């Protein structure tokens, strides 16, 4: 994930020399940016979702105590 992040940063920051961009539409840049980061944020989301499930499972597993069993 970190390598992906660095790759994206390098790709974007290696911009062509600064031009006068005052009249340019920033909308398309935001659109393309989402295409670039899609796999990063999507991947992080999948990892996070599964991680939550795993920790929730173990929390449930370890939180079982004799009292729970009696109920």
């Amino acid at each position, binding site marked *: 994930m970190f390598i992906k*992040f660095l790759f*994206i*940063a390098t790709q*974007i*920051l290696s*911009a*062509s020399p*600064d031009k006068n*961009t005052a009249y*340019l*539409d*920033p*909308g*398309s*840049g*935001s*659109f*393309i*940016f*989402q*295409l*670039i*980061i*899609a*796999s*990063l*944020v*999507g*991947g*992080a*989301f*999948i990892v*996070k979702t599964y991680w939550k499930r795993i920790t929730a499972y173990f929390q449930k597993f370890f939180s079982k105590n004799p009292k729970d069993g009696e109920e």
Partner: protein
Amino acid sequence: MTLEIRQDSTLPLGASFRDPSGFIFKLENRIYRQINHSYQNDYLHLIESGLYAKLVEEQLLIPHQEVLVKAPRPDLAYKIIEPDLLNFIAYPYEICFSQLKDSALATLKIQKLALDYGMSLKDSSAYNIQFHHGKPLLIDTLSFERYQDGKPWVAYRQFCQHFLAPLSLIAYQDSRLAILQANFIDGIPLDFASRLLPLRTRLTPSLMLHIHLHAASQKKYANTKPASNRSVNQTALRGLIDSLEASTNKLKWSPSGPGWAAYYEEEHSYTIAGLEHKQRLVKEYLSQINPQIVWDLGANTGMFSRIASDSGAFIVAFDFDPAAVELNYLDVRKHQELKILPLIQNLTNPSPAIGWQNQERLSLIERANADAILALALVHHLSISNNVTLDNLANFLQKLSSHLIIEFVPKSDPQVQRLLLVREDIFSDYTQEQFETAFNRNFIIHKSETIQDSQRRIYLMERR
């Protein structure tokens, strides 16, 4: 919603003229929204999918009724709806950090729910979120479009400009930067936010991604057509929303700095019996006006707003200090006080009318809708600290409301003496007699009483 528009008009006015899906209009003092044929399918999906009902149930979207009212543009009209009325329309540059943060989180929650129901927000303007019954509420029913698989989130840029940029500037740089929102009506440009944020935010992955790299990408790819074979699948889109939510949640701001300890200064200006007497007087005067809406000017952290709110009125609690407003809002949220809306407002430079033809966002005076004004421990701050003459002050206050409960703080008061410590006393007219003469020109003074153990005096006045 009433306050978006100055007068009866069947033309799209206020801030809604840009949206081809429909517009707001006012007729016989009621607010309606025309939905155009071009939005018909999206509107039907919003209602029939159950998303509308879900959002209303969650108190995230303004409820509305479909009504039979003559359409201002019958050639375009599909339906007319009448949304619930709001007590006050506030703008992003008038809300405190936590209000803006809660608005951002509400927007993302709405977007997640919209995706569950096959829709997506097509804009994420901070102006579309208003505080109603103490909670952030989306007031633009036409903000949804049917979700198209693979399409990036069209409102991503707007979310970053309207929410993430100002929130991170307040959290990492200075709370006063929030006022930039009044200059940049479509949110703070990301390249500008990127330059203003301290270097260390480049080491914060969420801000590096959504502000700094996003801004660099806007520059690099401006006017570049996105490749047609690339898409953002729904998992990636949900990942984006999740990432924005985590980024927003991480941003924190706590009021600090000089003046912080002085919040209860005004309380210390009275004895316990004196403060109780002042509270009793305010209650008594309010009960005689029986207002629906009260503006508390110089509300501080809201002690008297709460007294006024107990009388059943809706209170807009203005203060110039973002820290006081933040504290007031945190109290409102904690105790679920539904009838108090804390807002930032500098009375010596009130919110101007901004936007296209100066009509998109109204000035403070244009939004005046209070039945009564509370101006307690305020006069000396305006007259002594800001050289506002008493005549001028009376003239300003009579523009805001028909009734006024105002406290005069004489020159002999320790607080006024404190203000005069570092400046020459050029205020020979600042006396109780001159105060009454000045206000008599604009108001009838019905009642007045000196606060116990104090030289301060409270007045109940009515506009002439």
